[in-house]
């Protein structure tokens, strides 16, 4: 049978449900973010690791210009290499029936004897093309679905200048292409970029690679040192135009997934402690008040023989009930969050399966964290309750100990009204409580502020990347370097208004022990479409012999303007040149380096050439352009920047909208949790005082002023601190999100602060007004009669 003390517990909880709910919601945010973050982190990393292992995702990758097949055996002999796969890969512009835009395909050769040994594709439907067939192709499933292609359907590919008809024999997924992003694209687009697996013989014939390969993937033995293997692979392949072997961190798909997984871990470690901290404070505030109110009941329990431990446990259990509420709501929220995140990831990441590891320990860990939080919050009050001497507990408490201080003299000098003095004195009398309330409200502000920085920052990125630097409407990427004259020829294409050539060179930049693999973008001076812009928005022309670095790259190499870096050009001519850093610029996508086009050509002793053509377009004739591009030889891919810009902006808008809504909700929950509980406690502590004022002739609004004033004063004072914490959190988040792929600048916009403050102040005011209604309803006589 339930004990009477347990009934008291449940009834007290029932009576306090609004305050308990306000706390439970904040606690639930902690549980949700912990569970959601851990769940997403675990399921993403477990899924990735399992997928990689099952399908033997390679450890080391490299591309070469052309290496003879016999080197495959030598590669396999290298120390630490467990398996080798040599392939021929290339890009081709595709002509997909029903698609009016230019589509790019990445072609990967399949070994003669069937399925690859490494990076094994999972065949979703159909089969691999027959090794001897020249027109069979297996495509990635997402590409087939986005273009409504089925087995047996065909499309055309412009292979090294020859237009070939290809028939789909199957669809597949691959651990190499979990994140499938086309060359030059900002986001995956399955409709315009696909993976094509074709028999080796056919690919080699098309790319003129018979008896040779241009792509190597290696799986290492468990004991192997990756750096050593990379060194020996490079030594072997350098004479064949190697671009240098790299580990998984340079494999695009893996880089994106790993960065996402890191972000999840960061989120799971930043947010939950904030929520748990606020919950602990709220619990301690509310429990402290409950114990003050139940003083005489505690005395009675002791008088009738309940032990200190039983009383301590009684109040800890009350806090535990709040935790249980928070845990249940948080579990529901966390499960939803993890599912929703997984669904969002399914949009960007192509996993054949998703391992949900949210079960078991993540639920347990979040529950334990929540229980510990409330227990810690309640511990002080519960121990105080247990320590109350029964005889003292039954007497009314001594009046709180107010003392005269300098501040009182200042208040007297300012001739403040008595209600104002009451507000200030109460804030100063309990500085810890006032300070923590202020901190709680500040954290609510910072919760809204920190993700709000995404919008101005991304606006800045988009503005800088799309409207200042890359103003071209389209990029035509060539299969290999072409003479400068093709730039002029491009103007003759339909819809093309102007064209500019550009060259990209893979390099390794070095300064002493610092080195970075990147690519140098070489532009002619004074370009209009693709420009190098410094932080003031002025166009930078790179002088001969000089190189301009992005800030991130310069920092990584530890160089500044005037310093020299060593640049090793990879590929055909493996040459190292010393370049002077003439400027560093802020840039948000990639870690680029810039040189003058003529200077690069002179440095490498080659005739003027380019590898990419930037074009500005007349929208009216775009369809005609796409039709023509499908037949142009040596064209590897086409990037429509207008589409990229639009889809990037749309995706960002949508994601930011969701994120901000979630964080504003969380900020509101914290605000309500802190201010509602604060005002309730104040009302309970001061009900006699406030009723006395009413009896003395103060009006309702004059009395409410004391109640509202204290909370709102703290709320207003909390704003600057909230802005500051918000900026610190945002800086932390942005730094952790930044990678070689992109970095986010922190753009401080007053509107961000104003919005957050407005939301929090309105929510604080509304919470206090709800409590004020109780004050209005107070029966003066009965309040005065109640024995403390």
């Amino acid at each position: 049978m339930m004990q009477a003390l347990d009934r008291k517990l449940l009834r007290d909880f029932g009576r306090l449900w609004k305050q308990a709910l306000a706390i439970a919601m904040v606690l639930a945010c902690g549980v949700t973010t912990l569970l959601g973050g851990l769940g997403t982190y675990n399921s993403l990393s477990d899924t990735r690791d399992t997928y990689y292992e099952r399908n033997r995702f390679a450890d080391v990758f490299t591309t070469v210009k052309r290496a003879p097949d016999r080197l495959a055996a030598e590669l396999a002999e290298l120390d630490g290499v467990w398996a080798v796969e040599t392939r021929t890969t290339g890009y081709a512009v595709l002509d997909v029936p029903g698609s009016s835009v230019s589509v790019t395909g990445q072609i990967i050769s399949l070994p003669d004897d069937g399925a690859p040994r490494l990076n094994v594709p999972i065949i979703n439907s159909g089969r691999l093309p027959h090794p001897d067939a020249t027109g069979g192709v297996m495509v990635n499933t997402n590409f087939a679905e986005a273009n409504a292609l089925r087995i047996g359907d065909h499309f055309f590919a412009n292979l090294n200048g020859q237009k070939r008809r290809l028939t789909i024999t199957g669809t597949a997924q691959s651990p190499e292409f979990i994140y499938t992003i086309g060359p030059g694209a900002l986001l995956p687009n399955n409709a315009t970029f696909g993976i094509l697996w074709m028999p080796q013989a056919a690919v080699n014939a098309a790319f003129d690679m018979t008896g040779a390969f241009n792509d190597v993937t290696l799986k290492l033995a468990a004991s192997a040192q990756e750096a050593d293997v990379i060194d020996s692979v490079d030594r072997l392949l350098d004479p064949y135009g190697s671009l240098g072997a790299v580990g998984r961190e340079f494999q695009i798909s893996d880089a994106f997934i790993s960065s996402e997984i890191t972000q999840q871990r960061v989120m799971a470690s930043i947010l939950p402690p904030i929520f748990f901290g606020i919950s602990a404070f709220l619990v301690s505030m509310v429990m402290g008040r409950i114990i003050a109110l139940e003083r005489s009941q505690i005395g009675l329990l002791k008088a009738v023989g309940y032990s200190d431990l039983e009383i301590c446990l009684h109040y800890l259990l009350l806090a535990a009930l709040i935790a249980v509420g928070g845990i249940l709501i948080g579990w529901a929220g966390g499960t939803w969050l993890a599912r929703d995140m997984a669904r969002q990831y399914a949009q960007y990441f192509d996993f054949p399966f998703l391992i949900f590891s949210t079960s078991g320990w993540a639920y347990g860990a979040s529950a334990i964290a929540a229980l510990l939080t409330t227990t810690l919050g309640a511990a002080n009050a519960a121990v105080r309750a247990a320590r109350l001497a029964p005889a003292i507990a039954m007497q009314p408490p001594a009046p709180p100990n107010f003392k005269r201080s300098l501040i009182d003299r200042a208040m007297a000098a300012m001739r403040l009204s008595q209600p104002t003095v009451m507000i200030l004195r109460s804030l100063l009398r309990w500085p810890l409580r006032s300070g923590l309330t202020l901190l709680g409200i500040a954290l609510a502000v910072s919760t809204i502020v920190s993700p709000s920085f995404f919008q101005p920052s991304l606006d800045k990125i988009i503005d800088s990347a799309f409207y200042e630097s890359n103003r071209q409407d389209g990029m035509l990427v060539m299969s290999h370097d072409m003479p400068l004259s093709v730039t002029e020829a491009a103007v003759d294409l339909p819809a093309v208004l102007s064209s500019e050539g550009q060259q990209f060179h893979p390099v390794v930049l070095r300064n002493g022990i610092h080195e970075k693999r990147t690519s140098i973008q070489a532009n002619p001076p004074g370009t209009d479409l693709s420009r190098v812009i410094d932080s003031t928005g002025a166009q930078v022309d790179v002088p001969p012999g000089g190189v301009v670095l992005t800030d991130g790259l310069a920092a990584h190499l530890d160089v500044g303007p005037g310093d020299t870096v060593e640049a090793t050009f990879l590929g055909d001519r493996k040459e190292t040149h010393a370049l002077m850093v003439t400027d560093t610029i802020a840039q948000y996508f990639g870690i680029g380096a810039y040189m003058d086009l003529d200077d690069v050509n002179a440095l490498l002793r080659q005739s003027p050439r380019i590898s990419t053509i930037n074009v500005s377009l007349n929208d009216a004739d775009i369809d005609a352009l796409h039709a023509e591009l499908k037949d142009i030889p040596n064209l590897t891919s086409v990037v429509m920047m207008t589409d990229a810009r639009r889809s990037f902006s749309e995706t960002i808008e949508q994601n930011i909208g969701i994120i901000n809504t979630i964080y504003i909700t969380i900020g509101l929950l914290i605000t309500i949790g802190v201010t509602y509980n604060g005002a309730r406690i104040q009302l309970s502590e001061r009900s006699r005082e406030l009723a006395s004022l009413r009896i003395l002739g103060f009006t309702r609004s004059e009395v409410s002023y004391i109640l509202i004033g204290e909370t709102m004063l703290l709320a207003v004072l909390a704003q600057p601190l909230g802005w500051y914490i918000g900026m610190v959190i945002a800086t932390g988040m942005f730094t952790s999100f930044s990678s070689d792929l992109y970095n986010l600048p922190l753009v401080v916009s007053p509107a961000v602060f104003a919005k957050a403050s407005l939301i929090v102040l309105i929510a604080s005011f509304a919470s206090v007004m709800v409590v004020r209604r109780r004050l209005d309803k107070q029966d003066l006589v009965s309040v005065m009669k109640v024995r403390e």
Partner: protein
Amino acid sequence: MPEIVFRTEGITKVYQTGEVKVFALAGVDLSLYAGEMAVLLGPSGSGKSTLLNILGGLDRATTGRVWFRGKELTDLPDRGLTRYRRDHVGFVFQFYNLVPSLTARENVQLVTDVSHDPMPAEEALAMVDLADRLDHFPSEMSGGEQQRVAIARAIAKRPEILLCDEPTGALDSKTGIQVLQVLEEINRRFGTTTVIITHNADIQRMAHRVIQFQDGKISSVHTNDTRMSAEELVW
């Protein structure tokens, strides 16, 4: 000579309330006997409640010694005092001290849950004539009823001693007398040593002994040769 239940030797008590020091007891020597009903009389602040708290194990003397049936309370640790209260003492307070979120029955169960050989809560409430108010909350009962619940709660554990601090202080005379009748009945039926604090001098007439307090000391002890029943009291 009946058995001595309580004996105190030179107990003093100094309270520190805020910044004020109060000498609540200034050397009290007293013996209380099994089965007796003692009334402690005296003005406010004369030390009656303080003595009662020390006898009940709610508080400790600053100096001096206290024995309960030969066992020294002064030496007991907190745990021992809790045990002592749980097993031997029933309390009745002026303001009833019921737990507002528990019904009459549950308030009594609060005690029976932790006692060795309690009577059922219903039986205890029947003894104070509240058999029909078992499931009422304190807010639904009159002051007299609430005090009777408090008495039921005190006697449900079948205590050897019943300590009552101004049990009628918050009640009108009619309900006050009803409450005293209950106390009288319990003292008679169970032989429970009963100590009643009051500053209502009329109540002394129902006691075996009357102990008068003044300024933290016993000023006089007087034995009633003839006791009045509670029913006969008027004030």
